[in-house]
Structures are given as structure tokens and as C-alpha cells.
């Protein structure tokens, strides 16, 4: 029983990370219809840039974090301008391949610049565990939950109460109609890449103190984020958050109670089961095809 509480708590923290990454997937998917396989690389960039600014350039932690988010966001912006925009008329499968190419490129460059070693990033506020009932929590876990909550609230505000956010939702609903009422669809696509790379890098930064960072951490984190987005039915709202938390908690329980070697397998088995029972995701609405 104590263990279950402990596993659930750490599961919620990793689940929050998956949720942040998953929302990034959804934002780009809704704006463009693209599954951006390079999403995980922005998560990696967040962690590794923080290490770079903090350890090598000796910036203070808050400065390093701001610079890392800025750097990763710039990468996302460049990626959209150089690789996605020129391909506006490509088929979905070609777009997927381009994002895979982009992810290989970014990962390769990161390997050349920072090497193959694993680097550690210090926790934001020490490592003294906090007791909650019979379980313990690290301060970093609280940071993760807090920051995720803040980002989600900000996201909600942006999409429902600002003109740009509403324009982005209009694009997701019908890009042609959005264009007709005067929304600059191209700018909205660019904005979607900017927002999701910023969110992805932030997720990478807040988890780096717990898991360390290296050039190749983005692959698995990206895929789990994609899982969360799929479970949540590719929305940008709470359902992806629930999807991420569900995935994180079940994965953590499975790893703790069954086998840690199969941790990643458990996450994907959960995903397959959900897809088999509800092919449109846990919260997605069934689509009807028009012929």
C-alpha cells in the first residue's frame, strides 16, 4: 500500500511531463495535421541547453533556463521555416519523414556539440525529500507539478481568451475558412511550432534534474508524449493531461510492482489496449468518413 502511494506520486510527476510533451504534439497536429516526430528533440534540447548554459557558460539557474527555452524555441522556429513551410503541399507521409529527418539531424548535431556523455543538471531547490504520509516526494517533483499546472492554465487562457489563440483554434477547425476570414494561417502554423517547442523544452528542463540529460533522451520522451496525445484524442486540453497522467501513473506502478525492465513496454501495452477498445483514443470522438 505504501509502495503504491509512492509509485503513484512519482508517476504523476512523469505523467505531467508526458502531458506537456503530448500537448505540444497536439498543438502542431491541430494547426497542420502533421505528427511532428522531432518533438522529442526539443525536449532534449531543453535539458541539454540548460546544462550547457549552467555548467559550461556559468549562468545562474534561472538565466540558463530562460536561455535554454529561448534556444530550443528558436530551433523550432527555424525548423518550421526551413523544413515544414517549403513543403506545404506534401503528402502526410512525406511530412512525417521530414520531421523524422529533422529529428535525426537535431540529435546528430547535439551529439557533435555536447558529445555522447550523460550530463546532470542540479535540482531547482535542493534534494531533501518531503514526507507525504508514508511516501516521500522530492522538491523537484513539486516543481514539475507546479510548472505543468501553470503551463496548462496559461495554455487554456491563450487558446480561449486571446485573439491569436482563438485564431489558432479556428485554423485547427478549418484552415481554409480561417484564411477566408482574414487569419494568417502560415503565421499560425509558425506559432504552433514556437509554442510546442517552448513547451517541449520546458518539459525537458524540469525533468532533467531527475533523469539526467543526453543527446538521445528525446526519443523515448517524445514517443511517450505522443502516447499521451493519442490517448487524449489529440486535443490541446485536459484530455491529453489526463492521458499523460494515466500513462505516467500506470507505467510507474507497472515498473514498480511487475518489472522495471519492462517499464517502457508497459506504457505501450496500455496504449495498445486503449486503442483496441477505443480506436479513437480514450477521449476522442469517433469520426465518420465522408465519401
Amino acid at each position, binding site marked *: 500500500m505504501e509502495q503504491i502511494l509512492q509509485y503513484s506520486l512519482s508517476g504523476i510527476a512523469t505523467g505531467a511531463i508526458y502531458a506537456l510533451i503530448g500537448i505540444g504534439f497536439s498543438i502542431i*497536429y491541430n494547426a497542420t495535421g502533421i505528427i511532428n516526430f522531432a518533438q522529442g528533440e526539443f525536449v532534449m534540447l531543453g535539458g541539454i541547453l540548460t546544462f550547457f548554459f549552467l555548467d559550461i557558460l556559468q549562468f545562474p539557474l534561472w538565466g540558463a533556463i530562460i536561455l535554454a527555452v529561448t534556444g530550443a524555441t528558436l530551433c523550432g522556429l527555424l525548423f518550421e521555416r526551413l523544413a515544414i513551410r517549403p513543403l506545404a503541399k506534401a503528402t502526410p507521409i512525406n511530412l512525417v*519523414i521530414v520531421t*523524422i529527418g*529533422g529529428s535525426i539531424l537535431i540529435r546528430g548535431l547535439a*551529439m557533435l556539440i555536447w558529445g555522447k556523455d550523460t550530463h546532470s543538471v542540479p535540482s531547482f531547490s535542493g534534494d531533501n525529500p518531503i514526507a507525504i504520509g508514508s511516501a516521500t516526494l522530492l522538491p523537484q517533483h513539486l516543481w514539475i507539478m507546479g510548472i505543468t499546472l501553470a503551463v496548462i492554465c496559461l495554455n487554456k487562457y491563450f487558446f480561449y481568451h486571446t485573439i491569436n489563440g482563438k485564431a489558432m483554434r479556428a485554423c485547427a477547425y478549418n484552415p481554409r475558412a480561417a484564411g477566408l476570414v482574414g487569419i494568417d494561417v502560415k503565421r499560425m502554423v509558425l506559432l504552433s511550432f514556437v509554442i510546442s517547442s517552448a513547451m517541449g523544452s520546458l518539459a525537458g528542463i524540469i525533468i532533467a534534474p531527475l533523469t539526467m540529460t543526453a543527446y538521445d533522451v528525446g*526519443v523515448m520522451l517524445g514517443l511517450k508524449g505522443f502516447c499521451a496525445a493519442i490517448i487524449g484524442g489529440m486535443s490541446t486540453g485536459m484530455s491529453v493531461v489526463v492521458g499523460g497522467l494515466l500513462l505516467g501513473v500506470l507505467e510507474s506502478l507497472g515498473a514498480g510492482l511487475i518489472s522495471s*525492465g519492462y517499464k*517502457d513496454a508497459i506504457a505501450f501495452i496500455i496504449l495498445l489496449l486503449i486503442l483496441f477498445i477505443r480506436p479513437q483514443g480514450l477521449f476522442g470522438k469517433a469520426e465518420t468518413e465522408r*465519401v
Partner: protein
Amino acid sequence: MIKHPLCKYTAFVALILIIPFVLKGSYLINVMVFVGINTMLAIALNLLLGYAGQISLGHAAFFGLGAYLSGVLTATHGMNPWLVMVAAAVGVGLLAFVIGFPILRLKGHYLAMATLGFGIIVYIVFNETVDITGGPSGLSGIPNLKLGPVAFDSDLKNYYLVWIVTLLVVLLAVNLADSRIGRSLRAIHDSEVAARVMGVNARLLKVQIFALSAVISSLAGSLYAHTMAFVAPASFGFNFSVELLTMVVIGGLGSIYGSFLGALLLTLLPEFLRFLHDYDIVFYGLLLMVMIMFMPGGLVRGIPALLRRMMTGRKKGETVDA
């Protein structure tokens, strides 16, 4: 131009027969063995993706299952390799058939995610069942194949072995693509609902082609295990599934010979990028993006278009000269 399917196939067989004489004594003949294996895999995926329009990001799993079944049953249990190869292909085909029903109900990115998940689960099982597979460090001591007095123990012999099977797979795929089944698959690709209205049993046909694709991949896996004599999980992970997808798309979706071109390019490329050392991965990613940007239809459509443009360009030059 050679348009008739039989002419194309004969030309392809001739090309494959000439290659060993051109590459005599070169280590590239060994690379060509892997081109053969990858061609089979790319064709398998192309039947599913290029014809039926169903994406799979987990095809490396079927390849790996074939390789590990062959490896474990021959190296550890000393069973007859040919029998095992057939049994593995049947077993993997059945597995694909069973999981095909729930998986192929999914569409688009949900299908991509489910196949990806399946691939990763299988990959993790290869890593974790250390007692059977040897875990991350791999399984060695897989015997070479033997046929009567001939042991397939050299690169050249393996070349012929692998390419005979590959040529048979090509023949099968070309015929299948041009048959009633091939047309039904293309109908499903364009619109599943319309295909069903026209009387195509889309649900069953998708699962059948998925299973066939798995059988071919498993055969390729068995051949891989016996020619390499060693298998490790790293060869069957998500990255390899992506590489297969890249071969199919770069070669040209819905073109059997395109799959060969894609497999050729992506297998040879690392050999020629050796001089770049660690930079090769960067170059690889860049090439992938550039190829899609400038040849979205794949090599099989892009090269003729390029040649045509060069020819018309030259004609313009001539008129200027005149």
C-alpha cells in the same frame, strides 16, 4: 523504354547476376547481401504502405522475430535451419494475422502509434528475455545455412542465396501488385468505404496483406540471422523501422523496383559516409529531408523526371548555339 513487366523483371535479374562480376573480390559484395535483405523488407512494407495505404512503424519487429526464432532454435536447440525458417515465417505470419484485426481497424496516426507500440514492445522483449535471446549483448553462434554439400559460408554464396529469395519475392510482389488483389488494395488506399461498396472485403484483405508482409519480413530475418551468424536487439529497434519506412518512401511508394532503389541507397550510403565519421548521422538526416523536398515521389519517379529536365535543358542549349 522497357515497359513490359516481364522485360523489366528480366532486366532486373540480369543486373543482379552481373553485380558479383563487377564487384569481384570487393567487400561491397557483402554489403550487397544486406541490400538484398533490405530490399525484401522494403517490398514487404511497400505492399502494406504503398499499395494498401496502411502505415507501419513496427516492421522491424517482424524482421527481428524471424531472426531470433531462426537464431535461437538453430543455435541453442540445434534444429534444422530450413525447417525453422519456414516454421518461423508461418508463426510470424499467424501472429500478424491475429494482431492485424484489432490493429488495422485503426487509421492514420492511431495506426502509426499502435504499430510503433507493437515494435517497441517486441524490442523490449528481445532485450529483457536474457535467458533466451542473450539480451542486449546479442546471440552468437548461429550456423550458416547448408544445402546438400554446399555450405553458405562466403559472401559470394550468401549473395546468391539471399538474392534468389529476393528475386522470388520481387516476382511475387510484381505479380500481386498487378492482380485483382493489387487493384483491390489500391482501391482501399484511395477510399476504404468506396472499396467496400464495390465488394472488396477491405477488413480481411488489409489483415491478409499485413500477414504476408510479416511473412516476407520474417524470411528476411531468418536469412539475416544465418548470414550474420549473430543477432542483437539493436538491429530491430524503432530506428530500423524508421529506416525501412525511409527506404520505401525514398525509393517511391507503390513501386516494387523503387523499394530496391531505396534499399540500395540507404544500405550503401553509410559505407560511403565512413569518411565523415561521427558527422554521418547529421548528413543522413539532412539527406532525408532534402530528398523529400526535391523528390517527393521517390527516386523511381524523381530520376526520370530529372533526366527529362536535363535532356530538355540540353535541347534548349542547342537551339541557343544554333
